[in-house]
């Protein structure tokens, strides 16, 4: 039963909502704008919103001087790599739990989720020492493995919820049609679950890109992704606001854009189904 909402009420709602929205979004907006200012403009005691001389010099300098592309690539490799590895491990596990449930399935799933609640500092020292002794410190491989473990519970969980929506009879039909387990997963399950798999990848790439504990603690220079690179700006050397803004804008842009498409996945993945 739809009610006629007065135009006035709509306009007020719009004004208030947009007002708060812009307020919350402001820091991001400000960062993006500052990235196009000169350093002098950036720290000007009379900051201006739009009326300044736009320049691309910060982007050029960040790219040139600080080997930004390498940090970017590290972020890409670590984020995408850990999610792909995670999928490889999680798809079979989610298949087993969704289509061959046993009495233990519930317990196993809850246990997996609980491993996500382990505070990283609880395992910081051993992981650090193991990495040090095995030469994995500041390596992309090491970081890919750690982030895979960190996100595996969420990947398994999300795939599980998506797989459960697929009627089991279709997979049984595939078996009757002579499909092996491998064929069943490749030819029938995966195509049907593709949107769910894509959503899972989306959310977890975002989470891995933004991960800011292991990426800071386990890397120094070679494998450092963008989180660590930006962190290195924390001890300022002279004028640098505009460059920080440029580096920041480039660092957050990919995920901001991806994130805007992933709101539903966010709810699904991070509330472990406790909210529908």
């Amino acid at each position, binding site marked *: 039963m739809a009610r006629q909402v007065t135009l006035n009420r709509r306009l007020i709602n719009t004004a208030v909502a947009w007002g708060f929205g812009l307020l919350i979004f402001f820091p991001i907006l400000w960062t993006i704008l500052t990235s196009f200012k000169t350093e002098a403009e950036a720290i000007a005691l009379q900051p201006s919103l739009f009326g300044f001389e736009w320049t691309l010099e910060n982007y050029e300098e960040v790219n040139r001087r600080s080997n930004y592309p390498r940090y970017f690539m590290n972020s890409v490799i670590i984020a995408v790599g850990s999610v792909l590895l995670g999928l490889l491990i999680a798809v079979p596990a989610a298949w087993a739990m969704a289509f061959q449930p046993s009495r233990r399935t519930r317990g196993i799933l809850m246990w997996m989720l609980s491993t996500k609640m382990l505070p990283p500092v609880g395992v910081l020292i051993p992981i650090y020492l193991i990495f040090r002794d095995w030469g994995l410190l500041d390596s992309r491989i090491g970081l890919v493995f750690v982030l895979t473990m960190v996100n595996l519970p969420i990947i398994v969980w999300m795939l599980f919820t998506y797989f459960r929506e697929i*009627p089991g*009879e*279709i997979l*049984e*039909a*595939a*078996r*009757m*049609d*002579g*499909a*092996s387990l491998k*064929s069943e997963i490749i*030819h*029938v399950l995966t*195509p*049907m679950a593709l949107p769910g798999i894509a959503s899972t990848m989306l959310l977890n790439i975002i989470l891995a890109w933004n991960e800011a504990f292991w990426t800071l603690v386990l890397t120094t220079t070679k494998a450092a992704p963008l989180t660590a690179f930006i962190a290195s700006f924390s001890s300022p050397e002279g004028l640098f606001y505009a460059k920080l803004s440029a580096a920041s804008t480039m660092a957050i842009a990919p995920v901001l854009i991806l994130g805007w498409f992933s709101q539903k996945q966010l709810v699904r993945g991070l509330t472990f189904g406790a909210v529908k």
Partner: protein
Amino acid sequence: MGSITLKQVSKRFDDVEVIPPLDLSIEEGEFVVFVGPSGCGKSTLLRLIAGLEDVSGGVIEIDGKDATALPPAKRGLAMVFQSYALYPHMSVRKNIAFPLKMAGLEQSEIDRKVDGAAKVLNLGNYIDRRPGQLSGGQRQRVAIGRAIVREPAAFLFDEPLSNLDAALRGNMRLEISELHNTLETTMVYVTHDQVEAMTMADKIVVLQAGHIEQVGSPLELYRNPRNVFVAGFIGSPAMNLITGAEAAKHDATTIGIRPEHLELTTGEGQWQGTVSVSEHLGSDTFMHIEVDGIGTMTARADGDFPARHGDRIGLTPMPERLHRFDAQGLAMTRNEAAA
């Protein structure tokens, strides 16, 4: 090709024995229907034959060879699921081709067989569409096509018509029966609808709580139900079952008479009753009658019998059609030969 034998096959889920050990044999080319109320184990039995569930005990033989440990793909059977279970992301053609692709046939061979199945089932018009774009009846045919194309030893149908509306159901029933006549392959068909069972089967297996109550041809089950359950299950409207004093008069714990075997008069009959509801279909008239000293009975008359609510009516059961059951519910032999 296509004989299936079950020897002492049983199934338990956790601690519950859903199917106690049973024996059954299905001959080559037979159309066998498993029928029974919800939860009687008919679908479970079908799935045991298909290999989708393991038996808890016993042996399943297909064409004389022990298939009990074989996975579904290796049993040479094809199944049509209640929900059709078509692959939504594949076209009709690819759906039907899938089992052949899994068997590793050459593409030309696959195309030939798919076209063959399409012709038999009249799928030509929508062979390149996806299941989502098809109607219920069309999906049903595609599911059948996917089964046919494997040239199985037997077809297994799991309540295939339950999801269709009444009119469509009638048509599809005919199509499946015609298919059986054409292919002459064994078909094992599960349904809860005894009309489907009666019209389609060569042999009916009536199940209750995992037990086989009776196995026989439709007419056999109709004429000679072995116990009260089968008597009350087969035939629509259901047989009138009477206990108490009236049954004792016939030396039985329960007597049964089908609605169509009651002779009705406006005058005197063996029993007298008052019509409570009468349904006039034109071709038949069904009446629900409160019979003095007995209770509610259903009667059927040909054509348009002039009975209204409140009328007094006389009912006389045809003596050769009266069934008698003992205290265990088993049928007792009649004194006179069946008509």
